[in-house]
C-alpha cells in the first residue's frame, strides 16, 4: 500500500508554487514595462 499523505502534500506544494510563480511573472511583466528589458545586468538600481 502507498502512503497517501505525500500525495496530498505534493499537491498543496504545487498549488503554492503556482501562486508564487504567477506573482513572480506578474512582477516581471511590470518590471519590463518600467525598465524595457529583462537583462538582469541592467536591472540593478538597488544595491542590496
Amino acid at each position, binding site marked *: 500500500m502507498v*502512503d497517501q499523505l*505525500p500525495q496530498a502534500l505534493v499537491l498543496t506544494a504545487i498549488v503554492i508554487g503556482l*501562486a508564487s510563480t504567477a506573482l513572480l511573472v506578474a512582477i516581471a511583466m511590470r518590471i519590463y514595462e518600467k525598465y524595457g528589458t529583462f537583462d538582469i545586468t541592467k536591472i540593478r538600481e538597488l544595491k542590496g
Partner: protein
Amino acid sequence: MPGANIIPLFVAVALAGAFTIAIVGKKIKWLPDIVGSFITLVLFILSLLTIGMINNGPIVYSVGFWRPPIGISMVLDGLSSFMLITVNLVAFAIAVYSINYMKKFTSKWKFYTLFLLMVAGMNGVIITGDLFNFFVFLEIASVASYALVAFGTERHELEAAFKYAVMSTVGSLFILLGIVFLYSFTSTLNMADMTMILAQKGATNITLMVSVMFIMGLGLKAALVPFHAWLPDAHPSAPAPISAMLSGVLIKSLGIYALCRIFYNVIGLSPNISSILMFLGALSMVVGVFLAIGQWDLKRLLAYHSISQIGYIILGLGLGTPLGILGGLFHLFNHSLFKSLLFLNSGAIEYSMGTRDLQQMGNLASKMPVTSTTNLTASMSIAGVPPFNGFWSKLIIIVAAVEAGRFGYAFWAVLASVITLASFMKVMKYAFFGSAKKDLGKIKEVPSFMKISMISLALVCAIGGILLIPALREVFLQRATDVLLAGTKYASVIFGVIR
C-alpha cells in the same frame, strides 16, 4: 477543553476580514478602513485573552476533531501566546496608521486584503502544531508580503519585490525539503509526535542535514547575515506601514519564532547548533550596524538596523541559558515595537516632505513635534538608553553572555549598541534638529490617526521596562521562556494535554 475553540479564530477572523474586503471593498469606499482596524483590534483582544487561558498549561485544538497525531492540531502555549500578543498589537497600531497614510495610494482595499492575509499567515505560523501546516501558513504570509513590497509598482519597488520573492522562494523550498526529509524519517508531521520519534531514534545524519536546511531557509526569512541581501532593498521599497510590518513582526514570526520552535522543541538544541546560532547572531549584529551607519536613506538605515537587532535576539536565544532566552524574547517584543514605530515615523516624514533622504531634511522638530518626540523615544529605545525598554533587554542579553562565559560576544554586543546610538544621533541631528535645507513653510504635522498610532507605540516603548516586574514577567515573558527551556519535553507536555 474550555476555551480551545478560540484558537482557530486567530486565522479565521483575519481571513474573514481579508475576504470581506476583497468582495465588497471596491464598491464601498469607507469599508476597508473600518474592517481593517476592527479586525486587528478583535485579534489583539483575543490574543490578550490567551494569557488567562493558559494558566493551567497549554491548550490543543484538533482541527475537524481528528485527534493528533492523525489530524492537524493547533497548539496554544506560553510562546505562542507571547508571539500572538506581539504580532497583533503591532498589526493593530499599523492598521490604524494606514487609514491616513494609504490615502495617497490607489485601491486601498487591495492593500487591506493583502495586509490581513499576511496577518492570518503569521498568526497561523504561530499557533500551528503541524509542520506541513506551518509551511502553508508561512507561504501565505510570504506571498502576501511579496505583493505588498511591490505595492507602489514603481521601478524600485518592483525590482526589490522581485529580488525578495526569488530569494524568499528559495528559502521556502529549503524549508519544504527539510520538512520532507523529516517526514520520510519519522512518518509523522505533528510536531509533538515528531519530537518523540526523533528522541527515540537519537541523533543521526538526517537530523544534522535537516538542521542545516532549516538554518538556511528560516535564516533567510529572518535575514541573518549571510542570507540578508533581500532585506535592505525590500524594506525601504514597501509602503511605510508594510515596512513596519515586515521589520516589526514578519521576520520575527516567520524567522525567529520558527527557528526557536523547531530547534528547541522539535529537533532539540545541540551545542553545535547553539554555537552556530550565536555566531550568526553576533555576525548579523556587527555587520548590520556597520552597514547602517553609512546610509543616507532613512528607511534603508532602519532596515540595516533590523538586521543588527535580529542579531541580538538570535544571540540571546542561542545562548540557551534561562537569562539569555528571557533577554532574547524580551528584545524580540521590544524590537517589534520600536522598529515599527521608527518605520512609521519615516513614513510620516515621507508623507509630509516627500523625501527619505536625510541630507534634505533638517529642523523638522519645529514643524512636526509629535513625529519628532515619538522618534526620539524610539531612537532612545533602540540605542539602549535607560529607562526605555530596549535598554533592559540589551542589558539582560549582555549579562547573560557574560554569565555564560562568552566575553567576546558580550563585547561585540556592547560595541554594536554604541554604534547604534551613534547612528541614531545622526538621524536626530540631520532630520529633526540642525538647520533646515529646504523651505519648511508648507510642512505640516501628520493627520490624527497617524499621530494616535505613533503616540501609543511610543508609550509602550517608554514603559516597556515594567514587563520585568515579577508579577508581569510571570504571565508574559517567563511562560514563553519556560516553553523554550523545556526543550524536547514539549512533546510530553502536549501529549499530556491530549490524553
